[in-house]
């Protein structure tokens, strides 16, 4: 007897349909799975056997052959358990008559017959919808992940029996479609209202977040760089549905989603320790999983004390910052993951940390400072649009009772600026000012001839490197957006120029 049902496996972020074929014939009892299964898939026969038995069904005493087609692609994980069990039961049980040609089954089995959650439900759901499938059977625990997708019927089951009942024709409640809404206002532990003074840094952060610009904060120890960085989540703009799906898909593949979180509505804020390896950052491993740059997609990657990271690790960031995607190639294959993140880095101005400080003398030699700063290569620095100094806070500022602007007010402005950018770039395939290429720069960042002259003069007097030009223009564009200005005005350009400080030290 032969039976067939469709399930899915993952290749990077793409879902790959797998036909689970089961053949049962007479002979010496055995249970074989063919079609390049990995260890987790091979072990599924034990789970399937126990789950069927413990659900009160008969496990056939016969030659059972399971084929996973296409047979030349490696299948991994435990997602196929439920499909194998259903397919097997359809071959032996009577009454499982419901048509299955437009149905996808996903789920891991527990020995007692319960259906356990699996990774990658969201990307698979999207892929199945695209392929024209109409029904998706998923574990109950993954329900939250799939309930935002319109156009495909999602049925969440918690036991094997429930799934069998469905195929026997019983109606099981379809998961209700939820509408995507931004998360409710949250009281952030790190809020800009708790940061006293630091006007320049706060303004720079607002600009960085608005335009998705990478930012580097240079300042003495204790100046408050980390505290400022921790406030970034509180001013991050709300995610659009599209962005939320993208981010959730990556986290789903990485297995980071708990069933409660469902779709990710808050932009990720990743803070790897400086002992992080290259692979942990860019992704890889036996199963070619996404790394931190992909997990930070649409969010922030925060590197505290940047020069402490291994140089090779930092250099790895260059390509993803530039392209917004990363291709991870390993023996098992190569996967493309999104990596559109905003880089936020902090560092001391010199090894002792006091260079340029008002209160303490710097004891570092020229060579030491040069060596310390050289850890961040020129090409990497070129990709950081905003480079600001964070000054020490004075005692008076700390005890002042002046009320500081709360993050929610800043976030409102950021949201508006992002909206302006989305509308402007609707036909250019990008979302933020930081992603502008030369083509968009020419289109949206025109300067008047007088301002162009001033800009040129500033390069001479301030010893800016010519490479900084597009960087300043992008920042000026964001400042103009925050000011609801159609064109970049002189004041926007001038302000943008004031946020470069690191690269001008070179003579």
């Amino acid at each position, binding site marked *: 007897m032969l039976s067939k049902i469709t399930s899915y496996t993952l290749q990077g972020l793409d879902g790959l349909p797998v036909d689970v074929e089961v053949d049962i014939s007479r002979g010496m009892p055995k249970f074989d799975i063919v079609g390049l299964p990995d260890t987790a898939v091979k072990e599924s026969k034990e789970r399937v056997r126990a789950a069927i038995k413990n659900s009160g069904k008969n496990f056939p005493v016969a030659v059972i052959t399971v084929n996973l087609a296409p047979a030349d692609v490696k299948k991994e994980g435990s997602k196929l358990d439920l499909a194998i069990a259903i397919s097997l039961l359809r071959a032996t049980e009577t009454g499982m008559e419901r048509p299955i040609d437009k149905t996808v089954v996903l789920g891991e089995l527990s020995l007692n017959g319960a259906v356990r959650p699996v990774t990658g439900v969201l990307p698979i759901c999207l892929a199945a919808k695209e392929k024209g499938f109409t029904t998706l059977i998923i574990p109950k625990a993954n329900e939250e992940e799939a309930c935002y997708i319109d156009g495909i019927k999602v049925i969440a089951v918690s036991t094997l029996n429930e799934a069998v009942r469905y195929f026997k024709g019983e109606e099981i409640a379809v998961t209700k479609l939820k509408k995507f809404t931004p998360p409710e206002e949250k009281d952030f532990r790190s809020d800009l209202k708790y940061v006293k003074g630091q006007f320049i840094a706060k303004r720079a952060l607002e600009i960085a977040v608005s335009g998705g610009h990478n930012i580097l904060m240079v300042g003495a120890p204790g100046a408050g760089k980390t505290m400022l960085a921790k406030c970034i989540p509180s001013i991050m703009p709300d995610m659009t549905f599209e962005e939320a799906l993208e981010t959730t898909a990556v986290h789903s593949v990485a297995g980071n989603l708990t069933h409660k979180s469902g779709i990710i509505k808050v932009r990720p804020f990743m803070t790897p320790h400086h002992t992080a390896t290259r692979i942990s950052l860019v992704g890889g491993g036996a199963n070619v999983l996404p790394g931190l740059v992909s997990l930070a997609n649409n969010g922030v990657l925060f590197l505290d004390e940047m020069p402490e990271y291994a140089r090779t690790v930092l250099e790895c960031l260059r390509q993803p910052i530039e392209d917004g995607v990363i291709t991870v190639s390993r023996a098992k294959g190569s996967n493309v993951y999104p990596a559109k993140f905003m880089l936020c880095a902090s560092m001391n101005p010199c090894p002792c940390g006091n260079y340029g400080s008002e209160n303490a003398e710097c004891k570092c030699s020229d060579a030491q400072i040069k060596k310390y700063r050289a850890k961040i290569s020129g090409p990497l620095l070129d990709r950081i649009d905003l480079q600001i100094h964070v000054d020490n806070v004075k005692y008076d500022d700390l005890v002042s009772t002046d009320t500081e602007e709360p993050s929610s007010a800043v976030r409102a402005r950021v949201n508006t600026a992002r909206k302006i950018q989305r509308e402007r770039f609707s036909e250019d395939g990008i979302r933020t000012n930081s992603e502008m290429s030369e083509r968009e720069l020419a289109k949206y960042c025109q300067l008047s001839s007088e301002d162009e002259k001033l800009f040129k003069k500033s390069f001479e007097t301030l010893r800016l490197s010519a490479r900084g030009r597009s960087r300043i223009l992008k920042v000026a564009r964001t400042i103009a957006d925050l000011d609801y200005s159609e064109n970049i005005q002189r004041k926007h350009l*001038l*302000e943008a120029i*004031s946020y470069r400080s690191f690269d001008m030290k070179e003579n």
Partner: protein
Amino acid sequence: MNSYTKTELAVLCLDALDGLEYKHEKALLSFVKTPAELFTDKNSVKKYLAEFFGEAKANTVLLSLNESFAESVVDGLEKRGVTAVTCYSDGYPERLKNIDTPPLVLYAKGDLSLLKSQKTLGAVGSRKTLPNTEALLKEVLKPVAAAGVTLVTGSASGADKTVLSTALESGKVISVLTGGIDHVYPDCNRSIIERVAKCGLVVSEQPPDVVPKFWMFPVRNRIIAGLSDAVLIASGDKKSGARHTADFALNYAKQVYAFPYSVGITSGELCNELIKNGASLCDSAKDLLLEFGLKDEDIEEPVFELDEDEKVLYEAIKNGQEDMTDYCMKNNLKFFEIAPTLSSLEIQGLIVKLAGNRYKPVK
């Protein structure tokens, strides 16, 4: 073939010998009638040397004191494109002959005619010169260099480097290295020194392969002071090496100028002390041009057209308002309201940004 005379070869050879100190070389040269005798009159040279070092060392010294060794030294110099100017050469600067310890040989690379410059100004300072002082130094030196005064300085970062880059843009410069020409110190300034060797002159008292040592710095400073008609001290704390340059200049009876500083700025303590002890205060190019009898009418005072906001902020910064966070708080302003004004003042060269978001006026 090289074009060095016998006399020059003898001095070169003597200078290249290991283990002979400056005073011994000087004594030996005054002992012989002409330096060429070092090669010919070996017996009396040996006797003289033996008095200093004893028989054994005198013999080893004499082994190298011959023409073939001198030729090999010259070969080495030619390979590097270095010219040696000995104190007996025509090209040797008069100014150095007048100091009590003139270098026996100057190893030079670049435009040798600069050694005979009509007017020279030494300009030195500390490595930890504030950015606003660097800007002032640039502003002051630009017209001086453009008026044909050759600048003389070292090779360090900070003030020296500012002098070098200013002169490369608008005039002539001599950089006096501490070690040999092969060993630029600090190494990060190698590229600018190479440019000086092309457009100006790089000199050193040490043979090219000598690695700079700490004791050589003050010794080198006497050459900077000696080569200059007047010396400008741009910055320096109490222990700065610029103090040596100033002291040498005073000893050689040359005019010393210094930038004035506010009380409490460490990198300006030396300058204030010099002014207290009688050095001339310099705060504009005029002061220096007068020293060289040049007209100050030629320098155009740049005219700044400041709008209201710029005027207010510039005045505040001139009155010591460095911290912009502080300024915003006091005047109830948002930073983005003053950021454009700050940049504008900076681009016009009126103020300079220091590390830590502090601003200082150039003047």
